[in-house]
Every structure is written in structure tokens, then in C-alpha cells.
């Protein structure tokens, strides 16, 4: 295998990894603050992509032509809408169930995911068909032997990494982040110290869901196609990535996301029938779980988020 080809595989894997990591970080944030698993997360990714698509169509009707403006407007709309949705989910579904068995939260969010998916399928015009997602980023390509890097892929990769870094900074360097970490570590003591518990939980859910929306937009811009069922597999992969990395730990989620993408890419390279690549990746995850049940980077009680 020559260098260009290897580089291409690495790039493909990195792109997938960034999308998976963005989804996985959401799972890990929610688990960090409340010890809940929110299974509607994948469908929030999908809903974010559809909000972006609808915004794009709206802007076209209005006759907006500046691509830069469209990209920003579309992303902001998707992120804002999903942040609100995330906060609402926290306020209306997750917080009221805080003192009931964790299984209830899991079930409720699973149902919510199904409702979101079917709502898009039924109420988005022709929602059961795959929708072309516009290519809004520059498409210049840089070619080196068998290696091709397109500007849009590079922008998406950098934007994804920047978003993850931003979330990290937000949690480790700001007052709000301090509050999130405090709640994650010990909700009762945090309350006694004057932290507004409910607000912190809602902000965390808003943050995770906005990141999911960004994953949805990235997915749409990268593949130029979205469909109502895309969140299902992304949710499962994001969750597996978070668990393998160590639920509750941001670095773990990022590591898990890239690890899963790497496994899928390896699977596709090794097997002559590429359909086996998911089997390979998930089987590897099972083995990793058996080896390290708490995840690769286990959650430390002193630094939970």
C-alpha cells in the first residue's frame, strides 16, 4: 500500500471519527452530570440535519445567495433549535424522572427518539425519501498521487475538531463549566454551595444536543444526503464509542469515536466483502468491553464529566 492510499484511508477514518466523537461526547456529558443514558441522541443528530435542510430551503425561497451566510445561518439555526430541544428534553423528561429507576429514563428517551424519527418521516414533505443535502462549501480538491483532499472535507474536519475543543474549554475554563463539573462530582454538595442544579443540567443537555446538531450538519455536508433513519446507527455507534472510551469522560468519548471509525476503516480494508466491516467493528467493541469493562479511560470520581 503506498503512502497516498494509506493517507486516504486515514483521512476517511478521521472524518468518520470526528462525526462519531461529536455524538459520543453528548452521551458522555449527559452521563457525567446525571448518570443517565439518553437514547434519543442519534435522532437529535438527524433532527438537526433536517432543521439545517429546511433552513436552507427557506433561505433559497428568500433569495439569499451568499454561500458563507447560508452556511452560517443554516448551522446556527440547527444548533440553536437542537440546543432548545435538548434543554426541553432535560426539563420535561429527564429531570422529572431523576429519582425513578434509571431504566425509566432510558425507556422514555428511547421512545422520544422513535417519536422524533417518525415525526420527520411523516411531517417533513416526502420525509420517507432520502433528501439531497446541498453542497455549501468550496469543492476545490488537492490531489497527491492517489490521495485526494477536498476543501469541504478539510473544513468539516477542522470545524468538528474545533467544536470538540471548544466544549472542552467550556467545561474546564469557564464558571458554567465549573458548575457542570461540580454537579457531576456531587450534586448535593454543589447545591449546598449555591449551584442552580436544574439550570446546570439543562445547559449540559443543550450543549450536548447542539454538538449533535453540528454532527448532523457535518454529516449532511459531507455526504450531501440526509434521511430520517440516519440517526439510528449514528446513535448506536456514538453510544458504543462513549462506552468503550469510558462513559462520563470526554477524552474517552473522543478516543472511542476515532477508535470506532478506525475499526470500521480497517474492516473495510481487510475484508473483501465490505458489508462485514460493521460486524468487525462491533465485535472488536465487545472484546474491548470484556477486557476493560469501565472503558479505556475510566471515569475518575474526582474528575467526572
Amino acid at each position, binding site marked *: 500500500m503506498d503512502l497516498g*492510499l494509506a493517507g*486516504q*484511508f486515514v483521512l*476517511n477514518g478521521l*472524518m*468518520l471519527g470526528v462525526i462519531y466523537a461529536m455524538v459520543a461526547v453528548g452521551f458522555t456529558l449527559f452521563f457525567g452530570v446525571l448518570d443517565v443514558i439518553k437514547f434519543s441522541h442519534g435522532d437529535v443528530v438527524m433532527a438537526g440535519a433536517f432543521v439545517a435542510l429546511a433552513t436552507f430551503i427557506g433561505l433559497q425561497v428568500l433569495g439569499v445567495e451568499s454561500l458563507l451566510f447560508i452556511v452560517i445561518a443554516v448551522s446556527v439555526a440547527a444548533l440553536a433549535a437542537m440546543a432548545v430541544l435538548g434543554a426541553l428534553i432535560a426539563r420535561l423528561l429527564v429531570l422529572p424522572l431523576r429519582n425513578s429507576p434509571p431504566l425509566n429514563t432510558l425507556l422514555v428517551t428511547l421512545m422520544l427518539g422513535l417519536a422524533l424519527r417518525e415525526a420527520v*418521516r411523516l411531517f417533513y414533505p416526502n420525509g*420517507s*425519501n*432520502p433528501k*439531497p443535502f446541498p453542497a455549501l462549501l468550496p469543492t476545490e*480538491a488537492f*490531489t497527491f498521487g*492517489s490521495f*485526494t483532499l*477536498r476543501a469541504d*472535507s478539510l473544513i468539516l474536519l477542522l470545524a468538528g475538531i474545533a467544536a470538540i475543543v471548544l466544549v472542552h474549554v467550556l467545561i474546564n475554563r469557564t464558571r458554567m463549566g465549573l458548575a457542570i463539573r461540580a454537579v457531576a462530582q456531587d450534586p448535593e454538595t454543589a447545591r449546598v454551595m449555591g449551584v442552580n442544579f436544574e439550570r446546570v443540567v439543562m445547559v449540559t443537555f443543550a450543549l450536548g444536543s447542539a454538538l449533535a446538531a453540528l454532527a448532523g450538519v457535518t454529516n449532511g455536508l459531507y*455526504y*450531501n*444526503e440526509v*434521511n430520517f*433513519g*440516519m440517526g439510528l*446507527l449514528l446513535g448506536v455507534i456514538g453510544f458504543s464509542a462513549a462506552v468503550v472510551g469510558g462513559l462520563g469522560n470526554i477524552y474517552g468519548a473522543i478516543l472511542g469515536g476515532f477508535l470506532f471509525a478506525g475499526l*470500521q*476503516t480497517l474492516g*473495510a*480494508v481487510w475484508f*473483501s*466483502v*465490505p*458489508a462485514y*466491516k*460493521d460486524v468487525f467493528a462491533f465485535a472488536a467493541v465487545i472484546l474491548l468491553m470484556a477486557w476493560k469493562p469501565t472503558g479505556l479511560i475510566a471515569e475518575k470520581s474526582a474528575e467526572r464529566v
Partner: protein
Amino acid sequence: MKLRLVCLSALLAAVLGATLPAAAKDTVRIAFIGPLTGGVSANGIGGRNSADLAVRVRNAEPGTQYEYELVVLDDECKPNIGVQVATKAAADRKIVAGVTHYCSAVAMGTVDVYHKFGMPVIVWGAVLPDVTYAHDYDEVHRVNGTMINQNDVAAKFMAGLKYRKWVVIHDTTDYGKGHNKYFSEDLAQQGGTILGTFGVTADQQDFNAELTKIKELKPEVIYFGGLTPIGVRIRSQMEKLGIKAVFQGTSGIVSDAYIEGLGPLAEGTLAFREGAPAEKLPGGKAFLEQYDKQKYPDPPEAYGAFAYAAANLIIDAIEKVGPDRKKVMRELNATRDHQSIVGPVTFDDHGQNTVPLITKFVVQDGKWIVWEDSDYAKGKRKLPR
């Protein structure tokens, strides 16, 4: 959706019935089954409209003995759903016959159901040979040709264009595997080489890893055996990796949805399909005129004319022998040189129409154009080499 359609068609029948003269005709029910939701729903809806058109046109004619009603069911292009709705239709003794299935995997799954209940059906879109040839059921017929004819023509045509090196991507359903098998066999006879074969899942999103491998193999042509949704994904991801090979599809991507999903990227895509475009068919012009008159919101798509012809064959049989499943089945089995809008229909002893007619298509300026009429055939434009 399904319920709404049934209600709608029932309502429509009621309205039509109310406006007709009082001379009460018996109502005869015919089923239409196709994918009305999901990735290939554009084809399903086009087929449903066309079958509906056949019924409406017949009901408007004064000389018919029966009042026809189309019962529309959605198989979602999923075999499990297909078996459910096929059972629903076949178990309903009021339904005499059916115009059934666009997806091969679904058509394969349901043949046993029709045989068990003795309901005669005419397949209007599925192209897997096994749908008619893997069993001896008298109930199952098909108006469109099979992928055997399609791939034979495809291999000869592509060899004629002096292409030598292929890579095959196919989905791992019966449809995709069948295309892979027949095309590979036909291509070997033509002296073409297949550098690699890639089976992919039918709902896969990311093809970058497969395409990166394919890029290294440097094929002249990428042959794709599968349906529109992943066809769109593969073609657009090819572009991102800078793969310049010709994209050669099958009947599964000859749809407006393929072009809509890709925009300018669809240019130069080749595909092959049984029959000919509606306007070139023997009765195609009249069909399109009538179709436009009914103001359906969606186009008839590639297989609409076949659904129309299938519905007409059934209605003709019922007019002749009455609404009895066994008699209708025998009448259909005896079909020889029956004039239809897709040309004369003759069923062989497996109920397969023996049309050899295969049309070659290329996308030019956002439309599927018959190869012979295209700028590519005239040498004004060139396919990538």
C-alpha cells in the same frame, strides 16, 4: 399513508360510482402493491398512479361489464412488510388479481403467498429472473423483462465502447447479487476483466473506504448493481475522492430521483432497462396524454407503463372470463401476442413476458436520454476514459 390511500381510492370509487348511470355494475377489486414509502417510493408512486390510470380509463368506458376498484398497498420495498400486505391482499377473496412489486427481494418473498392463496398476479417492476423462473407457480406472471436480458445487452454494449476494466459494487440483496452474477458472466464472455467485486449493505452511508480501494484498482468503469439511494451516495462519494471512471448502473437507478439526488453529477451515468421510455413505446404517447390529464402530482417514472399494461391485462382477462381467480389465472397464462402499450405481451410457461426489448440510457443535461439520441452516441460529448 397506506390507510389514507385506501380511504382515498374508496372515496374516489364512491364519487365515481355516484356519478355513473344507475345501471349498477358489480365492483371488482384489483390490488396494487409497490413501495410507496422509503428510498424507492418515487417508482412505487409512479406505478401506483399508472395502475390507477388504467382502472380510471376502463371505468370511464361505457362498454365494460364491471366497475373496477384498485386496492393500494405499500410494501415499503421490505420483504417482511411485502409478505404481510401480500397476505392481506391474497386473503381477501374480493380481490381477484394483483399488480405487484417493484423490488425483487419483495417479489421473491411473496410468490409463495400468491401460490398458497391462488391469487393471480402480474409483477410490474422486479427484474430478478428467479421471480418467475425459480418455481412452477401458475399464479405469478411478469410484464417486464429480467436482469438476464438487461445485463447481456449491457455487457455487449460496454465492450463495444472498448472498455476493458471494471469494478463491481452491488448491494447484498437478491437484486444486487443477481445483477453481479449475470453481469459478471456476460462480461467474461465479452472479454472484459473485473478487477474487484464489493458487496455492500443496502442502507450503507459511507463508501469512502470501499471507493479508496477501488481507486487503487484504477477501473475504467464502476458497475453498480443496486437501487437509487445508495447509487446516489456512491456516485457523489466517487467525486469527492476524485474517481473519474464511468458510472454504469442498472434499471434500479433509472429514476428521476437519481438525477434529483445528484444534480449535475449525474451527467454521463449509464444504465439499462427493459422496455423503452414511455414516449417511444407503441402506445406510449396516448398513455402519457392520459396520465397528464389525470393531473397526478408525480411522474409515472420508469416502470409506470408496465404497471399500466399489467393492470390492463388483468382487466381484459376479467372482462373475458369474469371475476374468478382460477379463470383469470388460466386466461393470463394463455396470453399470446396481447397488444399492450409496452408492445405485444407473450407469457412463456413460467408466466414471463418474452420481450427482448432493452433500452440503453445515459444522463445528459439532467435527463435520462436514450443512448442513440444522445450527444454521447453522436460523438459530441465523451464519456471519461
